[in-house]
């Protein structure tokens, strides 16, 4: 009896200690500063009221120009363990000034995933970005939505509407649930709401920003379906020539369903692009998954693999720092907007004040974040 009570006390203790940390992580708020270019902020649930009040609902930041033109949608954190997308989106929200057309930015597309962590991989719960005024703290999320918001998982995930059989985990992966449906799983509702946004607002371009393993062939690239391929190729060649970084074009496989670069193009008039930058943190044969490794991308095991030509990207002692990853994403995004505007002047989108690759590498991504304590309260959105 006495041992049992001692054991029970131990159980309560080992339950409470991590529980507090996980609870705080799930409820930690990141203050997002709506920069001078943000004209209004709405929620995704506007396009599907069923999302209202759930952990899957998320902010949409609108940057509208004086003149009307085309519309582009930028998605960050489709996979919330690839934070370069969210950071690039935030740089646009805090700094972008749109002259013509409209930019819609969703920095935490899988909001539920941004409030979960990966079991078994020892992810840090948070990471910090150095800024002029101190450190800005972010939640590190997971690839899939939190099981607290969508549970249980099916044995096999049956994609709607193509009936393709996918891994059970992908039922919580928003980059497998496009185009979604209004009464489906929560993540299908998220992608459905985004499809409604794209269709109702007549969005021309959708840019879904990710990060991918260095040992995975689809990395450091723009994934584009047939309808976006020409533009993507122009963008890839331009950034290579003028900004000296590689970003090849990968065709979106028509038989692999549920991905943004496939379904958005097939189910709307928009042209989708999925951007990948190498994120060594996601590779499997690495040292501990620390905050430092997440940010600098330096790992001795990957370095050895790189010398044996096992990686799909150049890799040396400098790793793959976050500034480089965010910088690439911003340059490619700006270049997509510029090339599209040149080809389709009546639907052009002209944006200023968003830094490109060389600038972000030089100053660091934190340089572009304002101190939330110095900003008017009504310009701050907790996400």
């Amino acid at each position, binding site marked *: 009896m006495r041992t049992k009570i001692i054991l029970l006390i131990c159980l309560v203790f080992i339950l409470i200690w991590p529980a507090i940390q*996980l609870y705080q992580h799930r409820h930690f708020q990141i203050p997002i500063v709506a920069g001078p270019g943000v004209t209004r902020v709405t929620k995704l649930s506007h396009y599907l009221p069923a999302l209202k009040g759930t952990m899957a609902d998320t902010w949409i930041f609108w940057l509208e120009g004086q003149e009307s033109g085309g519309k582009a949608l930028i998605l960050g954190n489709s996979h919330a363990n690839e934070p370069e997308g969210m950071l690039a989106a935030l740089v646009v929200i805090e700094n972008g000034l749109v002259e013509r057309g409209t930019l819609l930015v969703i920095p935490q597309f899988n909001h539920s995933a941004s409030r979960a962590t990966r079991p078994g991989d020892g992810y840090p719960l948070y990471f910090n970005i150095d800024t002029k005024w101190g450190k800005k703290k972010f939640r590190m999320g997971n690839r899939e939505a939190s099981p607290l918001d969508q549970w249980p998982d099916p044995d096999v995930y049956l994609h709607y509407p193509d009936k393709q059989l996918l891994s059970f985990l992908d039922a919580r992966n928003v980059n497998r649930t496009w185009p979604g449906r209004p009464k*489906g799983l929560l993540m299908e509702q998220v992608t459905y709401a985004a499809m409604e946004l794209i269709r109702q607002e007549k969005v021309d371009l959708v840019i879904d920003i990710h990060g991918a393993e260095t040992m995975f062939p689809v990395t450091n690239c723009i994934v584009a379906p047939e309808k976006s391929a020409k533009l993507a190729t122009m963008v890839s060649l331009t950034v290579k020539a003028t900004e000296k970084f590689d970003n090849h074009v990968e065709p979106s496989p028509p038989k692999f369903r549920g991905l943004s670069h496939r379904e958005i193009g097939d189910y709307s008039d928009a042209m989708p692009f999925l951007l990948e930058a190498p994120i060594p943190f996601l590779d499997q044969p690495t040292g501990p998954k620390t905050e430092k490794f997440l940010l600098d991308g330096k790992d001795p095991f990957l370095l050895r693999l790189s010398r044996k030509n096992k990686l799909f990207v150049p890799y040396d002692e400098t790793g793959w720092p976050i500034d480089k990853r965010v910088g690439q994403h911003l340059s490619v995004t700006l270049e997509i907007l510029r090339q599209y505007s040149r080809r389709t002047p009546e639907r052009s989108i002209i944006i200023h004040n968003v830094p490109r690759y060389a600038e972000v590498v030089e100053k660091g991504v934190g340089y572009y974040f304002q101190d939330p304590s110095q900003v008017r309260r009504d310009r701050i959105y907790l996400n």
Partner: protein
Amino acid sequence: MAKFIMITYYLLTAFIATLFFWNFWQEKKKIDRQILYLLVLIPLLLRLLRIK
């Protein structure tokens, strides 16, 4: 439908958690068994308390 399945799974989790707790309480001698039951109980409790 999804909601119904979710509720069923929570009920299942609660049921299995009760079974493990019952086994733990009934185990008179083997302390390693007792610890084992409690360890298996942790993820079930975390889900029931909606923490992870």
